[in-house]
């Protein structure tokens, strides 16, 4: 566990040493800023609804951009060979990197806390959905980060890792809307896989164990798959 923490610390400082991190933060804030301020100025509504509604889709391409370098870059430069021959377990490596991505996503979300403050100053702020929304955003981000890590472990190309991660995350966001042409019996269970529906539930201020469990299992499955892929590379 101490090793995972060391890996996490290194990854965090690596994030902020590279320009990619700042570019991703700026793009993210621009996009979500647009959703927030367009409702504020165009519709005269001081509301976080549009911001949270679009968050799953925005995360579907921002989170893979955050995670794409994690393993792909290490494979590319060869530093992975050093990391893997140090006395630490595979789980420590995966967990450390996952923690670092989640910390980074929290840092990415932090500036948007200005929006609820602004809404509170301009009108009525319902605090429940805000807390739920940010908790959901963290869960969603962490689960997508696990998916992104898995994509990154597949390849030594960051672009391929990014696109693979995006594809999986988008599919998870849109699966409920894409399933309409399937028979009802198939569409309903498929809709349970939809990340955006589970996120919306939490963002409404309803923290249901089912939704939390969904994100926890998605993260667990993706991280296990990551460890499996890495293990196979040494076989």
């Amino acid at each position, binding site marked *: 566990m101490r090793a995972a923490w060391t890996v996490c610390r290194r990854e965090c400082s690596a994030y902020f040493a590279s320009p990619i991190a700042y570019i991703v933060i700026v793009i993210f804030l621009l996009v979500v800023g647009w959703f927030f301020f367009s409702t504020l100025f165009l519709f005269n509504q001081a509301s976080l609804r549009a911001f949270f509604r679009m968050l799953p889709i925005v995360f579907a391409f921002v989170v893979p951009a955050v995670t794409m370098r994690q393993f792909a870059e290490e494979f590319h*430069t060869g530093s992975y060979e*050093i990391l893997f021959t140090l006395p630490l377990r595979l789980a420590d490596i995966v967990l450390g990197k996952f923690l670092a991505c989640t910390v980074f996503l929290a840092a990415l979300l932090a500036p948007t806390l200005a929006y609820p403050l602004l809404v509170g100053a301009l009108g009525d702020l319902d605090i429940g959905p805000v807390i739920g929304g940010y908790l959901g955003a963290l869960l969603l981000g962490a689960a997508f980060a696990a998916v992104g890590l898995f994509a990154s472990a597949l390849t030594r190309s960051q672009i391929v890792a990014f696109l693979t991660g995006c594809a999986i995350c988008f599919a998870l966001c849109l699966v409920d809307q894409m399933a309409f042409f399937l028979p009802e019996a198939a569409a309903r269970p498929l809709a349970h896989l939809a990340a955006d529906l589970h996120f919306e539930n939490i963002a409404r201020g309803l923290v249901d164990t089912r939704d939390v469990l969904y994100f926890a299992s998605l993260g667990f499955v993706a991280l296990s798959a990551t460890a499996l892929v890495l293990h196979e590379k040494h076989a």
Partner: protein
Amino acid sequence: MIRVEELTKTFGSVRAVDGISFEVRRGEILGLLGPNGAGKTTTLRMLTGFLAPSSGRIRVGDYTTAANPLEVKKITGYLPESAPLYPEMLVFDFLAFTADLRGIAPGERLRRIEEAAALCGIREVMHLPIAEISKGYKQRVGLAAVMLGDPEILVLDEPTSGLDPNQIVEIREIIRRIGKAKTVVFSTHILSEAEATCDRVVIIHRGKIAADSPTAELKEALGGKSRLALLLEGADAAAVEARLAGIPGVEGVAAAPSDEAGRVAVAIALAGGADPRAEIYRRIRGTDWTLLEFHLQRQSLEEVFRELTREG
């Protein structure tokens, strides 16, 4: 210290390492020698637990890489080829990171980093990002990181590749210094390097062991033949061959016009252990030829190597 038994690694249909066995004793510097693609890196990767063997076994100390990978990694320090360190990190930060992962107590960390830095001569680059230091320094930072954990075994993959002659000498010097207290296994395709640094040499060719012997014995065990090279002026090739043939200890004489006009180059193969130089000189003195060059060439490790690893 290390015992490799019938080690095999296949990638698809390619047998990169094909049933090799060797042993490394405690405190020995072993050179793993072979042309590019012979299976050196694959062997080292299996030694360090980075790759799992397809079959065979590696015992390191009291452990095997298959059953106790973590224990093996604890007592082994590995520097892959061209030292792939995190480029964005500062040298000091990288060493601190390695120290933490090696489980060095925070109170001891600074002292250990300073020791390793002094040993490898990198004190003046501690504050620089790894991306900005030269290849030679990078290699030394990698060595320092390996030394931090005070491992019993060091595994170095082509530690001098891509360095300039001065840097090569420095790295060899550090390896020799480290090798006094540790067991070192390193790979190289440069023979003079193995000759200069190793106690023992294992030559790998196409995934198999072509030779395994102490460096000093290697040349003798594999022929140990020497040659005399002469350059004569005012002589005729056929006459030279006739005059020098039949001296005891001479196995063959080959004379041919040299590139320099009017001169004859002569190569005399000597039987092992014989030294007919005095007799050859006496025979030449009896003619009106002018002796321009006369020197003994021991078969170098390069030649031994080429003979062992020649294709087909």
